[in-house]
């Protein structure tokens, strides 16, 4: 089958339009009944509690390796005591939200795409509509709300655990004073850093859930289509998240510039 450039352009514009409608309705559904509280809590458990081990593990070791790498550079300038500050600022402002987002995208965006994709290709989504239930309200909105909330919570946990990882390296390998590490780590954090660190997972959570649901609900062509949707969801969620990170950072730097 051959497609002209116009066909490809039309298809992409249609995809953007459908994604935008899904994203918009996922938010609008919050303000109209019925609301699926039980489904939202169940998703929060799957996304939040389920992602906790990988977020804790990656956060801890990334914090540790960040301390190790930065200590090497800081030592050249006699600034080894700033290790805690560097770890906390890097993690809270940037690495924590992005790392947690990527982990949750890998686990949840793919999970949503494959689950909803399987439902789509086996007509379960049509069956739900035929039974008088809006799949947007029943399936999409609970996933979006729970991903947004849980990603913020997971990011905070990741930040704390990574600082702990940095502390372990600082105390046991670099022989720094633990109290000094923690005090510089805490004191260096301002309102702007924390705000930036909390706004990013809020946006990333929305991107992960809506992209995962969009690719799932757009799946066509049996199990192969579900596999394709799952891969595309992971790739698209990660890429859009990282690109949006640049714009969010630039925007927030206007409000919270570096001291």
């Amino acid at each position, binding site marked *: 089958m051959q497609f002209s450039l116009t066909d490809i352009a039309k298809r992409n514009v249609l995809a953007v339009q459908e994604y935008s409608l899904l994203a918009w309705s996922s938010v609008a559904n919050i303000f109209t009944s019925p609301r699926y509280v039980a489904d939202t809590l169940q998703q929060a458990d799957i996304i939040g509690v389920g992602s906790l081990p990988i977020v804790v593990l990656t956060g801890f070791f990334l914090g540790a390796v960040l301390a190790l790498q930065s200590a090497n550079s800081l030592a050249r300038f006699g600034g080894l005591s700033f290790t805690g500050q560097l770890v906390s600022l890097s993690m809270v402002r940037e690495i924590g939200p992005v790392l947690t987002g990527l982990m949750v995208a890998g686990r949840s965006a793919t999970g949503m795409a494959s689950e909803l994709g399987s*439902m789509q290709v086996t*007509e379960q989504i049509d069956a739900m*509509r035929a039974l*008088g239930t809006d799949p947007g309200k029943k399936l999409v909105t609970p996933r979006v709300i729970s991903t947004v909330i849980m990603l913020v919570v997971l990011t905070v946990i990741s930040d704390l655990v990574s600082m702990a990882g940095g502390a372990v390296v600082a105390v046991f390998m670099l022989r720094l004073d633990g109290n000094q590490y923690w005090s510089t780590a805490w004191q260096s954090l301002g309102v702007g850093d924390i705000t930036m660190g909390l706004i990013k997972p809020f946006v990333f959570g929305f991107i992960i859930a809506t992209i995962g649901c969009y690719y799932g609900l757009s799946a066509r062509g049996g199990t192969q289509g579900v596999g394709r949707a799952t891969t595309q969801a992971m790739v698209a969620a990660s890429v859009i998240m990282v690109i949006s990170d640049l714009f969010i950072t630039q925007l927030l730097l206007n409000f919270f510039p570096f001291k």
Partner: protein
Amino acid sequence: MDQSNNSHEPVIVFEDVSIAFDEKKVLSNLSFTLLHGQTKVLFGVAGAGKTLVLKLALGLLRPDSGRITVLGQEVSAMKEQDLFALRRRIGMVFQESALFDSLNVEDNVSFRLREEHVPQDEITRRVADALRFVELEHTVKLFPAELSGGMRRRVAIARAIVSDPKVLLYDSPTAGLDPVTSTTIVELLVKQRDVFQTSALLVTHRLQDAFTMATHAFDRKLNKMVLVPPETDWDSKTSFLVLKDGVKIFEGDASEIANSDSEYIREYLTQ
């Protein structure tokens, strides 16, 4: 169940309905009316547009032109959000059952009732009634993957009838099943038609199922369908509509289709 005898009231009306995919017309100017308590059987080979008719009636798809009215509401002009309320009065049995595979039989059948916040006692009673109707009371805790193909269809029928719909849409409910299981399913459709007088659109490519429906009635005393002698003055409430390449080529009752002059229909009947 609604058993009022308003048999002249139209339940589903298609007026000049057409739809195309990728510039290929799949339905062309289709018009028909389904009256209350009647069953209309849609025939046609694979790809004739039969399933499409059901999806259009439910508002799952929109026609390119024409008008579709279901239970007095113009489906073809309604917003998706408004359609959900109407769909709660319609039961649909999908070809591959489309049961929710992460829910057990009880939760599948009770799905609509839970959405409507029906009290738990009533849910339990109505689910038991619906599963008794399809003779699957023992499967409540089983998951769809643990059921045979025929059992899945019967659960799908139970899910469709549990909320006492005004109209039922069956999409090839006997496709791919063995003759014994097919007869069981057809018997359920006859029972639903004769006991509860539910209006229905039945899509199938199996002539024998349609003729069984047109020649059998459900005997409540014997609790099974029985053949009605041909000389009996009896209204089977079953009519036939044949689609060929998305165009209606026949509409009438069992004797009319059996005596049709159309070469296509005669060929279809003899195969």
